[in-house]
């Protein structure tokens, strides 16, 4: 069984300009969304208090909202979390509140007024400085990772490919951030981990294509650059699709069965892998081509061995 069985290389590069245009439009859209409505940062980044409580019956959110407003938390955000009996309460940072005590106070307010027993599932409090640092550290991790990859690919392959790979990664990250901004999904620590994992996954994909590209350049001596790239992408297409498929399978399981805490993680990776598969075909290779990669750049450096061998008797 084989998904694709092409006798001729598919002409992927025919669509390189429309594809690049589409990517640029998507990037502009993502940036616009991030600037206009921003990212819905989770507790890990903004600071504040999150309380998850379990009830024995279906929760009446309106009543709980009123109770908390009465207890001095009119700005509390209350929502169901995972099931109709789990409730997530967010209390934003406020200078007049002693945040470290909010969790207990809210729980007391609820147990006092609700007839049914309330069980505390988790309380998380994050101070303002911690969240700010996490944003900086996370951004730093991403930059360092991209820079490391830029260097490694430049050394192992060629600088044009390196630029293509890193731009493709940046493309994947920005579009995923854009998705979280457009849909206003919560961006928490697990989503950050997912985006960093996405960088790892997506570079994997791109390197496989590049590796084949290098081989094709050396093998197909009379082909044009376009033809060579098409050949490399076509011959790795089966692998690209199958690996994405198995990973997506597993992520779907995580998405549906992993519980509410891991939802953001699965969402980010599902979207990111779709984008990453597309970008390793179109963005990375197309950019390398636009930058003017040629067969000569990919040939092994003239080896000293040949000269020595000819001198041997």
């Amino acid at each position, binding site marked *: *069984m*084989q998904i694709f069985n092409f006798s001729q290389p598919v002409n992927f590069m025919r669509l390189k300009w429309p594809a690049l245009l589409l990517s640029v439009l998507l990037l502009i859209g993502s940036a616009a969304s991030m600037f206009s409505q921003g990212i819905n940062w989770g507790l890990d980044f903004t600071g504040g208090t999150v309380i*998850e409580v*379990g009830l024995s019956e279906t929760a009446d959110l309106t009543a709980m909202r009123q109770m908390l407003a009465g207890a001095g938390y009119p700005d509390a955000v209350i929502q169901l979390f995972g099931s109709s009996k789990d409730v997530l309460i967010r209390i934003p940072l406020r200078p007049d509140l002693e945040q*470290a005590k909010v*969790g*207990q106070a809210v729980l*007391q307010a609820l147990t006092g007024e609700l007839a049914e027993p309330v069980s*505390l*599932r*988790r*309380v*998380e*409090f*994050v*101070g303002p400085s*911690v969240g700010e640092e996490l944003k900086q*550290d996370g951004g*730093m*991790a991403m930059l*360092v*990772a991209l820079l*490391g*990859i830029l260097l*490694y*690919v430049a050394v192992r392959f060629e600088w044009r490919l390196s630029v293509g790979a890193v731009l493709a990664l940046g493309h994947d990250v920005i579009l995923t951030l854009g998705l979280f901004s457009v849909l206003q999904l919560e961006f928490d*620590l697990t989503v*950050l*981990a997912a985006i*960093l*994992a996405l*960088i*790892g*996954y997506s*570079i*994997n*994909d791109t*390197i*496989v294509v590049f*590796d084949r590209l290098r081989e094709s350049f050396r093998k197909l001596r009379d082909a044009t650059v376009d033809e060579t790239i098409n050949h490399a992408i076509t*011959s790795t297409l089966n*692998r690209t699709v*199958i*690996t994405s*498929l*198995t*990973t997506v*399978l597993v*992520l*779907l*399981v*995580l998405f549906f*069965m*992993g*519980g509410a*805490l*891991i939802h953001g*993680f*699965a969402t980010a*990776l599902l979207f990111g892998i779709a984008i990453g598969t597309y970008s390793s075909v179109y963005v990375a290779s197309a950019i390398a081509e636009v930058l003017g990669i040629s067969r000569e750049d990919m040939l092994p450096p003239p080896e000293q061995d040949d000269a020595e061998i000819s001198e041997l008797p």
Partner: protein
Amino acid sequence: MLNKNPAWRYLVVIAMLLICMLYALPNLYPEDPALNISAARGAVVAEHSVVELEQAFAKADIAVKSVQLLDGKVLARFASAEQQLQARDLAKNVLGSNYITALSLAPATPDWLAAIGATPMKLGLDLRGGVHFLLAVDMQAALDKHLTDLVSRFRTDLRQAQIRYLSVNAGPALAQVVIKFRQADDMHAAVLLLSGQDRELLLTESQDKLSLQVSLSEQRQREIRNYALEQNITILRNRVNEIGVAEPVVQRHGADRIVVQLPGVQDTVLAKEILSATATLEFRLVDTDSDLAAALAGQLPVNAELYYHNDGTPLLLDKRVLLTGDHITDATSGYDEYSQPKVSIKLDTAGGSLMSDASKDVVGRRLASVFIEYKPGSELNADGTSVLVKQQEVINDATIQMRLGRDFDITGLSSPAEAQHLASLLRAGALIAPIQIIEERTIGPSLGKENIELGISAIQWGLVAVLLFMVVYYKAFGLVANIALGANLILMIGIMSMIPGATLTLPGMAGIVLTVGMAVDANVLIFERIREELAEGRSVQQAIHQGYDRAFATIADSNITTLLVALILFGVGTGPVKGFAITLAIGIITSIFTAVVGSRLLVNLIWGGRRLQSLPL
């Protein structure tokens, strides 16, 4: 013949798998609800405590799995959590208040596995429930306290050297004291005096020669910060041990932060109270004239109070407090000129003059150090918080040999360990830099359990989906890939259990699931390559050989970049992100191994070295 491997290669791979399997085994055994009982303040846990407990449990009909004495602690295992709770109350009654009883989960690793050092994976707080605190030490307060002391020291020193000054004040800049003079000559004299005193002070003269800036060197500031941090960590460790938590973590985190993790603790209010409890220290003279026996019988002398040593011996102390602990600026253990253990105490300027005044007429009498702590007790205030109970004990008493000043030593200690312990208690009683909770995460036990169950079922179903897909798509070769995937999981879990620092967290479990999806990648690359080689008309054996060889370069390149990302994640990330990075990195390495080495050996064993017309691929 192509694609034949020597037997030793198979043996090496099988041996590696078996070892990892052995170390992964403890994870299959469920944990027992258990009690950890350790001794506090002078009490000792010994065989008789074990017997006492066993009898008490038998009387109350509590089924005990085992009661053992391990490293000076009693570990009692129970069949259920209810019995564990009953047993805790019982143990508290039987043994009294000098013992600390902690609830815990003890791994039920069989002895033969424990003997080779195999232990289950450590679970993060998000999987086992508990409290996590991140505390920030107020370094500004620590520096300010030091500067205030410096100001009063300069005033005294200048006065004693008869140098006239206008004012000595802290600030305006950070870590700086400014001394103002009326005449340039005075400043000159002051510079001479101060520069000889302390090399860590940087002196800057002003243009008009009338004011002198004294700032603390970077080195000194770093020392002050480190001291404030270490002091807090020592105190927190002592307190956490007193709460009775099994496997607590108190760790330095960066330049001015402390992480405290208390697995299994649910009552954050109590935990916070204990963490923020204050300790002080008092120096008092020992009253040897009054009648101790009468005092013990209830007839206290007018000007003395009854105290107890930490080993339980009673003694009478003067009511008057010579000095309080907030004047202590440092206490370190070391050796005197006769190589006997000692503790050196440094006081601030005010403390030094108090001590010198107080001790000049009492040379020859004994001086006791009393350690005082306020801890939450069992009674409750009206607002539901615990009433703080004052606990005090004499940690040392020594004869005053001469008039004491700002620096003095306590000698005559029995061992270097005692000196260290005393120094740490003295530091704990000194004024400490305040700490503030800047992050708190409490995970209820039910949520932790749920997270584990969700994680395991996600791994199972993810695995099933991938296994099915591979068999359908690659047929017999798919089976080989599946065996490699199974081996990969065993290797991963085995290695995670072997590394002592590796902790499994929820994102870590997500990392395992993701690795399952990505681990087949290497095999997919290889199989696709073999198909291509076959399509180009190579013989079956050639195709297998070339397929593995050519795919290897690609696999190596692509995985090294991913590994790079995992390492960066580990370096920059904290807590959960680190946990994820560890699983990802281990998963990458094991998946390369199982695909490149493991699956190749298997393929060669089945199809290698034979004349075949086609492959079941």
